[in-house]
């Protein structure tokens, strides 16, 4: 969908579909996983048809998420290489959080925070996937000490990951005009110029 022909394309349809496949899986996994983590969340199993169905479905959804995340990882990996400008940006993230982003260093398609999030999520995904296999009794029967370690790692990383996704979603909502990039693929030129000036110059050829 083109709202304004001068809008800049940020994500193509495949990138968006890929992102939302990971996102939907993540939401389903967080809801069912929390149910097994703390009794307060157990009623969430009703969303999946009860405790047994939640237990059956959770690992399969996990495999779908892992596969679709790997594809997304290779799509975006090259764009997320940290540069000195990103480190400078990260060191001054407090100003940004405070709502004053005018003096922040110029950023490419992704800023330092987004890049740090990308790598942290990749690491978390890897740990979640491997530790999750340890717990999947339908297919694996590993020594109990490994299963115990897997359970702790899986729960701890999942909690960290859920918190990071809150930050990820919040950042998209807080920086107005961002969500549309992942919904219909475009952003306004002003948005790009304000938040990702180096990327703006690269795609428009303007200063």
């Amino acid at each position: 969908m083109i709202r304004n022909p001068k809008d800049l394309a940020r994500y193509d349809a495949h990138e968006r579909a890929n992102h939302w496949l990971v996102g939907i899986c993540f939401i389903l996994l967080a809801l069912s996983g929390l149910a097994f983590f703390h009794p307060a969340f157990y009623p969430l199993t009703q969303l999946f048809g009860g405790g047994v169905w939640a237990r059956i479905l959770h690992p399969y959804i996990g495999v779908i998420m892992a596969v679709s995340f790997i594809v997304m990882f290779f799509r975006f990996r090259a764009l997320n290489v940290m540069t000195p400008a990103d480190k400078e940006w990260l060191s001054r993230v407090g100003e940004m959080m405070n709502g004053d982003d005018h003096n922040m260093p110029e950023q490419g398609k992704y800023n330092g925070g987004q890049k740090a999030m990308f790598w942290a999520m990749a690491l978390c995904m890897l740990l979640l996937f491997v530790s999750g296999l340890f717990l999947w009794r339908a297919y694996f029967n590993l020594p109990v000490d490994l299963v115990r370690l897997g359970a702790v790692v899986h729960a701890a990383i999942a909690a960290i990951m859920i918190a990071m996704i809150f930050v990820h979603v919040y950042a998209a909502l807080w920086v107005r005009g961002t969500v549309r990039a992942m919904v219909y693929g475009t952003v306004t030129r002003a948005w790009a110029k304000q938040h990702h000036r180096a990327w703006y110059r690269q795609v428009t050829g303007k200063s």
Partner: protein
Amino acid sequence: MALQSLDIARRSATTTAAPGVRQTTAVAKLIDVSTCIGCKACQAACMEWNDIRDEVGVNHGVYDNPMDLTAKSWTVMRYAEVEEKGKLEWLIRKDGCMHCADPGCLKACPAPGAIIQYANGIVDFHQENCIGCGYCITGCPFNIPRISQEDNKAYKCSLCSDRVAVGQAPACAKVCPTGAIQFGSKEQMKDYAAKRVVDLKSRGYGKAGLYDPAGVGGTHVMYVLHHADRPELYKGLPADPSISPLVSLWKGFAKPLASVAMAAVALGSLFHYVMKGPNEVSKELEDELEKEDAK
């Protein structure tokens, strides 16, 4: 088996008090390994009373049969041949759920009401609430629960909670021909064990003793061992069992800590928005681009 309902001490994945208005005496089963002859009457009585038949297996050339606990064999005799002071000793241990006072299975279980600990100390699985995740196996320090391949529910010895509820001894204790399996109040069983230990010591087993491991708060199935200093001799009975620190971390303080941390991040985001306002694209930039377009 949900025969009792007023005397529940603990209920899995439940954060409020369980119905516990009726207080019952703590019970225990005492297995005197020194008088066990390995006849397997207890195994037969267990399958008879519970009316469960395991698959007929194959002989592995040893007395152990079946070779391990299964979802349908809740107790098995384990035969160890040990050389002590130049003599062969045949140590035969009836293995099954120990009914820990501090049960790792119950601590790990995520399904409300799937594992119940009664006031009398019996730890019972209520399979209708079981979701088949296997966390009980992860939590158990004795490697007891087994998930059925047929229905994906966890099973183990119930200490015949249905019999005990109506004042009967467990089937295995009832049938034991040598009196090696005794059943009564935990206090009575400790007294009985003390007498057996005196007897064994007088017969040259200087290290005889009662196995009632403190690491799991004591158990409601106890052993009299001739070599209480080396429980591992008895086919790997753990010397000092306790709930793994990893399980305690996972289902202990990590649970509330992580829940609070996640909520804090979500609330922190909301309050950040409310207090700092959204990060809008500046009007100045928008106007500037509009001007460019107009040219």
